[in-house]
């Protein structure tokens, strides 16, 4: 049993309290213990504890000088027989925004280790806790893994409060709730859960909290720990919890009725529930015009199919079903393969593994070296391998195309899942031809169909088919068409108001309604009655107006 568990309340005597704190915290070099004495006649002793590096020392200095001044003054006029008048001190020291009085030792110790200053006064079994958190932070930078062409450039940092603030700046809704909990018996990592109270799917918050509460672990060093401990399908290669560095992505998810989980010390925020198709969507899709967004989204779907199946289909066709390839093409492939001594499957596996090797090496090395490795790997080794007759030029093209396609998937974790399941598919296609490919594909499809993310089907809205949600799946419909939030949202279901189809004012001088603008038309701004009739859902609060 630790000292904190043995004794959870402070003594009245300062020396006892000092011994208690030394017993718990030891003599770590970063732990600062400052002795303070009030009032030259009454000689009241106090100790201030804080952790160097986790606090803003200026704030502590300010607080102590304030305390000394007011403390002396109060003690001078005090009629109390002994001990400092804590209640009075508290009352007069409330200039500090985050000033608290606590009784529990564990609370004070946790506070010291998380960046607050604790002041223990002689003769009092209560202590002051002053919020003085302040440490070196990385500034808000552009996210490294999710860059966009159009859209905000700010990304999450390692500070949980900065991260919640980045989301709060985007959603100034009083219904946005951010709840706190700590996980990790030793790390006591701050975890925040964010959601909008009247939008979030019913029961989701409770389920998230329950899963988080059930975690028993010594430390949480990154949100990946949480992800693995709360996901629905821990044995699946598919990732069922979305992680992102982008505050706009989190804000948009929260607005769609999902829950965000912020973990201190990491820029990766988790979003639940998550759906497979979400991983193929990028923030740009919503910021670019809908045609551009839809086109690039379609390209990404294509990239997904290519990344998953291209190598397997090539191996399958060349090994087993040559008759399916047009004659001219098969002749070209055959001439390229003439000198290659390996079967196509082995050739493909060699190339795929080499590609993964180059990718991994390029990723871990310093940036300039990483680039050099990529160039040497892709150009020099690829070219040399073809000339040496180890691989065919066609195989190099296929593997390169597959690799590029996998990089086109915006989420790194999802891209990795696809790269992972490509291998069993490749081996099955290379050993059993169409039968192997279709059997393995069917098994993967069945597996994906069984997956759930916090009670929601992972492949929704494709299956189960949700016609309403198709407006944001393969094609991104224009904003004036995406009126409703996704299916399952409770309460405020509408996002976009009526008659949002933009139309310039009618400036035709010969028209009866010449020059009438949308604003001047109280009945719905220049839209035909047919268009108006289609918008039936009402925005929250519209009735009251």
């Amino acid at each position, binding site marked *: 049993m630790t000292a904190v568990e043995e004794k959870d309340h402070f003594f009245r005597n300062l020396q006892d309290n000092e011994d208690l704190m030394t017993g718990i915290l030891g003599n770590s070099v970063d732990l600062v213990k400052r002795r303070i004495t009030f009032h030259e006649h009454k000689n009241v002793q106090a100790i201030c504890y804080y952790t160097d590096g986790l606090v803003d020392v200026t704030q502590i200095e300010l607080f102590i000088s304030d305390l000394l001044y007011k403390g002396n003054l109060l003690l001078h006029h005090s009629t109390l027989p002994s001990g400092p008048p804590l209640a009075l001190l508290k009352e007069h020291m409330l200039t500090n925004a985050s000033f608290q009085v606590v009784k529990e030792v564990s609370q004070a110790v946790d506070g010291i280790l998380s960046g607050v200053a604790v002041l223990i006064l002689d003769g009092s079994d209560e202590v002051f806790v002053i919020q003085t958190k302040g440490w070196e932070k990385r500034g808000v930078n552009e996210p490294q893994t999710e860059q966009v062409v159009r859209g905000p450039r700010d990304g999450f940092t390692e500070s949980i409060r900065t991260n919640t603030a980045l989301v709060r700046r985007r959603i100034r809704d009083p219904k946005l709730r951010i709840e706190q909990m700590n996980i990790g018996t030793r790390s006591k990592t701050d975890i925040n859960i964010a959601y909008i109270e009247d939008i979030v799917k019913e029961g989701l918050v409770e389920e998230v909290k329950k899963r988080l509460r059930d975690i028993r672990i010594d430390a949480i060093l990154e949100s990946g720990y949480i992800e693995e401990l709360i996901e629905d399908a821990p044995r699946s290669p598919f990732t069922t919890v979305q992680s992102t560095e982008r505050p706009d992505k989190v804000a948009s998810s929260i607005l769609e009725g999902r829950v965000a989980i912020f973990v201190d010390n990491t820029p990766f925020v988790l979003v639940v529930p998550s759906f497979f198709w979400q991983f193929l969507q990028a923030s740009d899709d919503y910021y670019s015009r809908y045609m551009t967004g839809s086109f690039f989204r379609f390209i990404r779907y294509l990239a997904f199919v290519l990344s998953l199946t291209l190598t397997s289909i090539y191996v399958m066709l060349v090994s087993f079903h040559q008759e399916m390839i047009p004659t001219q093409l098969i002749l070209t492939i055959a001439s390229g393969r003439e000198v290659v001594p390996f079967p196509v499957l082995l050739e493909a596996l060699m190339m795929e593994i080499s590609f993964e090797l180059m990718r991994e090496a390029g990723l871990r090395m310093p940036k300039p070296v990483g680039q050099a490795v990529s160039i040497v790997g892709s150009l020099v080794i690829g070219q040399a391998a073809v000339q040496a007759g180890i691989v065919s030029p066609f195989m190099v093209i296929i593997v390169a195309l597959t690799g590029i396609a996998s990089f086109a998937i915006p989420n790194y974790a999802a891209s990795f899942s696809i790269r992972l399941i490509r291998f069993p598919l490749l081996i099955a296609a290379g050993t059993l031809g169409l039968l192997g490919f*279709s059997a393995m594909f069917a098994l993967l499809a*069945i597996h994906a169909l069984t997956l759930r993310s916090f009670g929601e089907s992972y492949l929704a809205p494709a299956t189960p088919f949700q016609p309403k949600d198709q407006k944001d799946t393969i094609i991104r419909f224009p904003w004036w068409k995406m009126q409703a939030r996704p299916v399952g949202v409770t309460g405020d279901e509408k996002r976009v108001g009526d008659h949002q189809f933009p139309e310039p004012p009618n400036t035709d001088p010969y028209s009866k309604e010449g020059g009438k603008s949308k604003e001047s038309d109280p009945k719905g701004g220049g839209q035909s009655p047919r268009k108006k009739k289609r918008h039936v859902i009402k925005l929250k609060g519209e009735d009251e107006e």
Partner: protein
Amino acid sequence: MKVQISNGMFMALIINMIYAKAIGVTQGSMAREVGGDIWISTLIATIQGGVIMFLVIFVIRRMPEGDLIDQSARILGKWFGKFVALITFIFFLAAYGPVMSTFVFHLKDYFLPEAPTLLFILAAFLIGTYAIYFGVEVIARMALIGVFSIIALNILLMLGSLSEFDIRELRPTFQMGFLRTVWASRHHNTDWAMATIMAGIILPMVANKETWGKMGFAGIGYGMVFIIMWPILEAGVLSPETAAQYIVSCMQMARSAQIGYFVHRYEMIMIAFFALSILTQIMMSLLCASVAMQKILGLKDYRKVILPTAIILHAFGYWINFDKNRAVDFLEGWWVYISIGVAVGLPFLILVMGFFFKKKLKKEVVAEEAK
């Protein structure tokens, strides 16, 4: 919580359950009997299938909480229930022969002629057992995607073959006589038999019981729409004589389809779309057989009998399809009598029994609802 599927999923299951065999294997059998009138036989069979589906839905509606087996047990006791479960098991065991024929002949004859039959049986075993472990919901969701792939397959085939279509191949109608055309419809009735008995097992899991009838008939209607294109094109493009030469006439049809100069062989793409339908047949047959086996043994969960049931069904499927002559004899002979006998006889028997023991059944339903 009881597993439930949506009405759309139920409809998708019906469509997929009949589609895979009906478009090719069945058409080949019918073409050998009535030539160019295969499309008329297909239509007649659809009407007969609709009547049987109506009968099954009517019977299940009397006691919506239980399937055909449960209802028989409530009417005449546990042993009668076990007898009906045994009949159902035998039905799906027999169904597995033609289902495996469809699966094996499509892949083996047209893509992997040198691969042993056992390999195809093992692949079906692996996929089937894995899928049914997760229950009807997963299969139903797959069937829903299957409907879209059926549409894609039909469009692809039309694109590649409509230019070759000759309506004269369909004329004159009823060239073998009206009765022979009706009689030939028995081959397609076997496909409907699988769908109706499946409905008799899974209907209690379908969410909205008020729309069972509507969805059942919608499934039949859409199924007919998706299937009828095949006999018309097979007769009009391949000619009835050529279609009659093949066990899997649809594959021959797919092989001869061509879009432009470059896309001259795309049957592999078509087989990819076809795969979901045949896989649904495999999974649902296996699932229904496992449920029947579970009820014979009086177990609470069918998952415990998945493996023995799958072994029996696949062993039978292998035995039937190991010899092609045996497979075709069974397909056009025994299977027709077993399937139509069970599909008509079983719901009718339960209907009549329910009529005689009306009061008892009502009492059981009230007790079930109170529970």
